[in-house]
């Protein structure tokens, strides 16, 4: 599992929506090695405040061009620093880190549940999955958010030819309600499926429960604070059930960020 600490160059800084951006970075070894669901630890400037790097899921990686894309929304000092980065400037990256989404074989439907800004790693996963899809398999995207403007990646998902279902809690786009309602609806269909989810932990908890009830394999990419990204600080602990009934903590940065839904004990 190779990883690099390097200075990446900003090759494009694209505004996707109000206060939502995509940073396209030249980082060839990371672009080469990155797998869908993996992340990088980002340091925009050598500041003491903000002090720590932050983890960002990889939205897409192009090994031929040596570039990766990161999605972020401006919210607080760290992302404001990110938003000031000009094309040609540099950013420290450490990665690619963590485990990745692996397609479950022998199912007809790959259901990707994207909650709000949790969509980026699923965009990357869908793009790789689309290439390796067998004739009998298809990709179904369930994308939900509180409001229409908080939905991410719909164009990317549609461009892959995936079946896309959308929900918003305020009814501004698609079904009015939660994305987990869409999931329940999908799983009423007995056709074999696997679920891959990323979004707020409150959503993942419900996704995990629904999948357990329907005996559908489910993988969740969790969100935690993460100071180091390399397994040293134990700050990103996720409580898991061990065989035999005991509990332990696993590191989202090393054993995760993707966990089997049934092993996570939600706080």
């Amino acid at each position, binding site marked *: 599992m190779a*990883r690099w*600490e390097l200075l990446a160059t900003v090759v494009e800084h694209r505004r996707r929506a109000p206060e939502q951006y995509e940073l396209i970075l030249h980082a060839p070894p990371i672009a080469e090695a990155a797998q869908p669901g993996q992340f990088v630890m980002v*340091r925009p400037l050598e500041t*003491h*405040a*903000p*002090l*720590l*790097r932050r983890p960002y899921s990889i939205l897409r990686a192009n090994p031929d061009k040596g570039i990766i894309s990161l999605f972020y929304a401006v919210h607080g000092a760290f992302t404001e620093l990110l938003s000031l980065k000009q094309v040609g400037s540099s950013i*420290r990256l*450490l990665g690619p880190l963590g485990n990745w989404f692996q397609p479950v074989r022998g199912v007809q439907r790959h259901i990707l549940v994207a909650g709000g800004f949790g969509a980026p790693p699923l965009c990357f996963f869908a793009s790789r999955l689309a290439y390796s899809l067998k004739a009998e398999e298809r990709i179904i995207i369930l994308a939900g958010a509180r409001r229409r403007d908080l939905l991410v990646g719909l164009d990317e998902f549609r461009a892959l030819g995936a079946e896309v279902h959308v929900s918003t809690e305020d009814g501004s786009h698609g079904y009015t309600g939660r994305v987990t309602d869409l999931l329940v609806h999908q799983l009423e269909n007995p056709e074999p499926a696997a679920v891959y989810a990323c979004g707020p932990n409150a959503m993942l908890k419900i996704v995990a429960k629904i999948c357990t009830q329907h005996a559908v394999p489910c993988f969740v990419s969790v969100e*935690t*604070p993460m*100071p*180091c*990204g*390399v*397994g*040293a*600080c*134990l*700050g*990103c*602990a*996720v*409580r898991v059930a061990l065989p035999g009934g005991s*509990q*332990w*903590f696993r590191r989202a940065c090393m054993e995760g960020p993707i966990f089997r839904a049934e092993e996570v004990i939600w*706080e």
Partner: protein
Amino acid sequence: MNAYPNLQVQLGPLRLPNPVLAASGTFGYGLEYADLVNLSLMGGIVVKSLTLAPRAGNPPPRVTETPAGMLNSIGLQNEGVETFLLEILPRLREYGVPIIVSVAGETVEEFCAVAEKLTRAQGIVALELNLSCPNQMRGGMEFGIDAKLTATVVRAVRSRCELPLIAKLSPNVTDIVPIAQAARDAGADILSLINSVLGLAVDAQTRRFKLATRTGGLTGAAIKPIALYHVWRVHQALPDVPLIGIGGIMSWEDAVEFLLVGASAVQIGTANFVEPTTCIDVLQGLERYLVTQEIPSVQSLIGTVQDIA
């Protein structure tokens, strides 16, 4: 002028190739960083605190960023001393970096039992007592905030361990000097200071604590002035006791400041999370500083801070 300054430091019975170490709990067991950092160049690694039995640690969230720092409440999660000795130490030894092991316990007996197992192992150069552990006998109060309890732990471990002994002091006290004195008198060869500063963080939006345990230990750049103060005070009071300065060191300049106020070596903590190579960067910066300032050795810098003119 000698272009190659002497970076070696002597701390009582402990000689280190250079004065820049990684602090306990911030560098895992060293192996986590082995592909990113040339471990063999480091002055030493203080591995994460070990207890007798494996410990699961505290519930999440365990960390939160604060201005120029972070609060943590990990709860001493570790695999236990036996797993360390069997599975980790043999691999870490191969890097040739001095290994110091942080010892933790909820009782005096646990400290001793862990230390006894470690003192028989090959390749450990010293033990560091994590006196900021919650004391089971006293409702979870830190051992290290009480001079008598500090002395009890240090004396007990001293009598059952032949390795150089470092007592790591807590800053969460009214006066650190009597505790430093008690640790020294009980047999500590070296004092390291400071451990994290107690603090808490609240989310105004959700009106909740940001850590599951409510309170945590503050580390990072924000605590450097506090750490410098405590190191300077202890060095003034106990000039013969070798000290290791810890707290908010992000750069070589920070490390030099600790040497000037009386530390013989430093430990880098939170900065490792930000830049994995901080220890090496600090060491190289320190070396350049000694060369350009025409200072022959690290040792000749220690405790030489002067009043403003």
